């Protein structure tokens, strides 16, 4: 028993456990379920029932078995490599799409620390910069896949991806500088902790959405573009370039691209929640319990951590849902509209946001 506890104190072992629990237990699970939920939610928006036919005997689970059916089907399909493709790059490209979406989770805190145990895989002090570095890498998966496929449409998709992601990263970064300035740190855990401070005698939490409302809209728009979600999914615009950069893929590699898309939805939601919606914080919940207007309710640390994890997961799921509903609300932008929106509208807005934030901070300091 003591030995097990000793092993558990080794940082590496802790990190591995956290990776298994957070990434496999939450991120992958939610990403997989989202592939079905997208179809169910879209059918609700479109006055349909949605997939409900996959069954084992009489059991269908309202379509839940479609997850398994899709997985088995894509694994059993032939994995084709087109003639003239760059074989090595073609085969590894889906991984480049996949890993950035997962790597982001290294710095996302799931709950507040209990003593020396943190619920964050690693708390590097350049957390936000790390997130940026990693999400930018996502472009390689698309570009490599499109380039290596030896297909004109795939290459067009890859080019669209790269130009879109490069354009949108500019104001994505600028919009977050406001957050750096308000909270004075780029360490993710600190930013989340500071979002549990309050205005007006502990009444309104200083969440990112309240301190930087404009930055939230800019950031969320940019993140939708980074995740290649509607209305920014020109890279895979069906009516124009069939399926874009993953056009030639089939079987398990195709489903790796699809799953990467859903995992990056979860990642985008989690980053948005962490930076703008207090991360794991519940308003007025402190490490020792609730405090509001002089009333207080003491809670043991484990309960607080569970509540916080629940709050983080709930908020993340709400954002996943919102991103999917947005997809079924909006049509795809034309490519020039995307560029126009990014460079002519969002970039000036994010700069203005920066100037105003700086002025306010200067005047109130």
């Amino acid at each position, binding site marked *: 028993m003591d030995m097990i506890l000793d092993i558990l104190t080794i940082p590496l072992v802790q990190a591995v456990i956290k990776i298994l629990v957070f990434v496999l237990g939450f991120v992958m699970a939610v990403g997989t379920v989202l592939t079905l939920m997208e179809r169910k939610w879209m059918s609700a928006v479109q006055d349909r029932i949605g997939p409900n036919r996959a069954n084992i005997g009489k059991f269908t689970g309202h379509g839940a078995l479609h997850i398994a059916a899709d997985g088995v089907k894509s694994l059993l399909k032939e994995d084709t490599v087109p003639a003239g493709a760059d074989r090595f790059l073609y085969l590894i490209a889906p991984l480049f799409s996949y890993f950035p979406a997962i790597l982001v989770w290294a710095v996302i805190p799931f709950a507040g620390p209990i003593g020396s145990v943190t619920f964050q895989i690693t708390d590097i002090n350049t957390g936000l910069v790390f997130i940026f570095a990693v999400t930018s890498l996502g472009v390689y998966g698309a570009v490599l896949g499109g380039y290596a496929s030896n297909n004109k449409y795939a290459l067009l998709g890859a080019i669209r991806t790269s130009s879109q992601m490069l354009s949108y990263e500019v104001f994505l970064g600028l919009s977050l500088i406001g957050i750096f300035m308000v909270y004075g740190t780029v360490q993710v855990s600190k930013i989340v902790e500071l979002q549990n401070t309050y205005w007006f005698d502990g009444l309104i939490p200083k969440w990112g959405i309240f301190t930087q409302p404009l930055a939230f809209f800019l950031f969320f728009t940019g993140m939708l573009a980074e995740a290649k979600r509607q209305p920014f999914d020109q890279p895979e615009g069906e009516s124009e370039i069939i399926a874009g950069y993953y056009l030639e893929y089939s079987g398990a590699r195709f489903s790796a691209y699809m799953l990467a898309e859903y995992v990056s939805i979860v990642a985008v939601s989690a980053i948005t929640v962490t930076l703008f919606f207090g991360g794991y914080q519940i308003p007025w919940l402190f490490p020792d319990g609730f405090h509001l207007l002089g009333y207080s309710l003491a809670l043991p640390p484990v309960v607080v951590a569970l509540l916080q994890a629940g709050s983080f997961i709930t908020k993340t799921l709400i954002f996943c849902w919102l991103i999917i509903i947005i997809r079924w609300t909006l049509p795809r932008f034309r490519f020039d509209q995307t560029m126009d*929106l990014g460079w002519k509208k969002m970039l000036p807005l994010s700069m203005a946001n920066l100037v105003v934030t700086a002025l306010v901070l200067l005047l109130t300091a």
Partner: protein
Amino acid sequence: MQTAKKPSVKTVQRQGGFLIDLYLPAIIGGLRITLRHFFRNVITQSDVVTISYPEQKRRISPRWRGRHRLTVREDGFIKCVACYMCETVCPAKCIHIEAGEMPDKSVEKYPVVFDIDELRCVFCGLCVEACPKDAIRMDTGIYSMASTERVTFDYTRNMLMDAHAKTDKTKFPSTPLPLTQEEALPQSTAKLAG
């Protein structure tokens, strides 16, 4: 003297403004619609228009031309007098009749063989119109005769006399309830009448 009228061009002022150019009002308006549908359908499924075929079947109009049937007299004997009207008028040549003499002389002839090849039938309804004795009708409401065997589609006299025969080997024996004439009216008409 009349001067040629200048073709008038209607100029539509473009709705502008920074907010509109950001698509925000349009996005919020769109989200309102999709969310309304989403929550309505998640909670009550009241807007769902799906018919879960083959468990549920669409109700069809009373005028729908389904599979044929041969009607019978009150004494149970077939009404058809083997006049060959339907066979003659049939544009698809799918009806085959062989006449026989009626033993009790109540009518001259009756069909010993009355076969319809439903694979050739174009469901035009001309046979029903041509029949002087109201002996053939298409009001069974059976529209799905799917089968994997060609021979299943050869309907003999006795099969046609029994609209929902046990000998029917189709995969989806469908007997949806036909609508009444009133129900079959378009909804807008019903609203106007009510």
